[in-house]
């Protein structure tokens, strides 16, 4: 029993690392949302591994974390949906999809004033 939990727990740690890398490196916001989902799934799988380690009384896992996981999955879905909606609206407004900062305002010309 604990072997499966440890294996998937380590898998979850790797997923979190992968998602974090993708979140920093990929410029497209949609890829960032994908990466956020990968990180989120890593956290959820870790929670599931923790639940499995708490198996007792004939149940396959500790029911409290499993119940919280269901809540967490629905919240993560709503978060992705909201992010995609903002992204698509940004695309409709500007034709481009990026979170890069707007170009800085032109440098002021008061170096001459003394």
């Amino acid at each position, binding site marked *: 029993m604990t*072997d499966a939990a440890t294996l998937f727990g*380590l*898998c979850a740690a790797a997923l979190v690392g992968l998602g974090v890398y993708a979140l920093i*490196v990929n410029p*497209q916001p949609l890829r960032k949302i994908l990466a956020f989902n990968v990180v989120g799934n890593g956290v959820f799988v870790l929670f599931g591994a923790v639940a499995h380690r708490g198996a007792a009384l004939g149940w396959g896992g500790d029911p409290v974390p499993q119940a919280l996981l269901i809540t967490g999955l629905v919240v993560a879905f709503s978060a992705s949906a909201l992010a995609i909606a903002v992204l698509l609206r940004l*695309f409709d407004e500007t034709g481009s*999809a990026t979170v890069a900062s707007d170009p800085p305002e032109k440098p002021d010309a008061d170096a001459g004033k003394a």
Partner: protein
Amino acid sequence: MIEAFNGALALLVLVLAIWTVVARDTFAAAVGFVAYGMLLTLVWVQLQGIDVALIEGAIGGGLTGAMLIAAASRLRPTEAAARAERPGLPTRLAAALVAACVAAALAVAVLALPDPAPTLARETADNMAATGVGNPITGVLLAFRAMDTLLEAIVVLFAMIGVWALAPDRAWGGRPGRLHRADPDGILAYLARVLPPIGIVVAVYIFWIGADLPGGKFQGASILAAMWLLAAMAGLADAPPVSRTSLRVALIAGPVVFIAIGAAGVWTAGAFLAYPDGLAKPLIKVIEWALLPSLALTLALILAGAPERPAR
């Protein structure tokens, strides 16, 4: 044998996750994500969390995947510009380094978790009799930690309001999303006519047995939302205009019933969200019946998007 299967599954999950990270084309990455979601469902089965597997399959792989693929195809024109923005090698190396550090620290923490693991299974079992349901997860969701479920229904509603807030002013009050058209003789229209009735029966069944076996309203609601999405994609159904009061009342009905029963518990059972003796199971059923349509509607409307077409 089982260890080998689990090992192969974990490896495959990681490979697909790497694919979604490094794939050149965003559309391909989104498709890979759907496959990855399906594999995660298997992971849940192996971790013996069947309820979670059901939700992961419906929402994590299914609805999220549909959303991502639709967005990826709409955002195709931005690929070239985005590729030009890719950070250089030093940034990518730094990112890989910090990501590896974080993953390593997590791995150490995972391996250092105590053995025997602390668990609340015994406490849950001791108190299940008071709730009258057989599925311990339903007991946790609707009795012991009912507040989290109530807040979760409200969170989903807030996300929907946030999506609606993105509408342009001229389209406010109108119908969400675009009107889809599909070939009436094509496979999509055929599936959209055949699958939803089956899907609705399956959804209601999963919802009904959730009291004693794996299942419940979240799983049922997501399948209902998915069936609506299928019909909408084939042009057989359209979202109602957001200004319609009956729609709004249907959306809040679930949380309102939940809050009302919770408030009644203050007088009848001594605490907010407490159930009087013997009435726990019927009240839980009432809450679930009220939440199922509200939740399904909210999830479906989140998928539909912001109002884009002025109401007729």
